[in-house]
């Protein structure tokens, strides 16, 4: 199990790209933190979640 935005999910083994696709976002408007460290955009497809990981997906919306 992994924790994504505070929710426990059965996503161990999935890549960051897979998870973003499940969330319905392409990755252009997000920042992804894995265990308190930023995941560089270039590493989304090669970063796989392990059991016990904590991931935060910050989705940005327009306006400022």
């Amino acid at each position: 199990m992994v924790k994504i935005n505070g929710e426990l999910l059965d996503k161990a083994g999935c890549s960051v790209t897979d998870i973003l696709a499940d969330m319905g976002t392409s990755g252009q408007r997000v920042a992804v933190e894995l265990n308190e460290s930023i995941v560089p955009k270039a590493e989304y497809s090669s970063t796989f979640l392990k059991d016990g990981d904590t991931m935060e997906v910050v989705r940005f919306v327009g306006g400022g």
Partner: protein
Amino acid sequence: MPIPTREEIYAALEERHGRELQKKLSEASVAVCGLGGLGSNIAIALARAGVGRLHILDFDIVDISNLNRQQYFPEQLGMYKTDALYDTLSRIAPYCDIQKDCVKLDEDNIPGLLEKESIICEAFDKADQKAMLVNCVLENMPEKYLVAGSGMAGIGSSNTITTKRITKRFYLCGDGTSDVEDGMGLVASRVLICAAHQANAVIRIIAGKYEI
């Protein structure tokens, strides 16, 4: 009335904020990226609080559509936002050390332009640009504190706008969902709430109060 001296203004700030906090504020250096509804209001709040050095960055000019929420005046229409806000900040806080850069930030120039400031405010309006700045700072400058804003369009409840500490040095303000592209535009009051969240997060970081 003549403009008060540096010492007179400092003493007035110290009286309100306390000696210890004012010393920290006067020694702080903050970058504000984007000078629209968020950035112009964040910069003014920080200047009023006596932050010693502000670095303001934007590439745009003041447009009539900005006047509903951004801290510009009708006679400033057509000016670069960096020049217009510089003038206003200088009137509010004449001894604040202000650096202005009229430039469009991108992944190549961000690390150089934001090198000096320990705290960076993301105050862009476009979602992809917000993500670009946040990712660039977190990837390349992990020692910086970053305070971003996302979700403040419309006239939804004030109480849905919050400050979250995403990681140790990355704070996010806003409701996270109210997208300007969904219809309702930006309204001064709610944009100011988000800007105030960001400015207060910055001041708390300066004060060494990192918890939210």
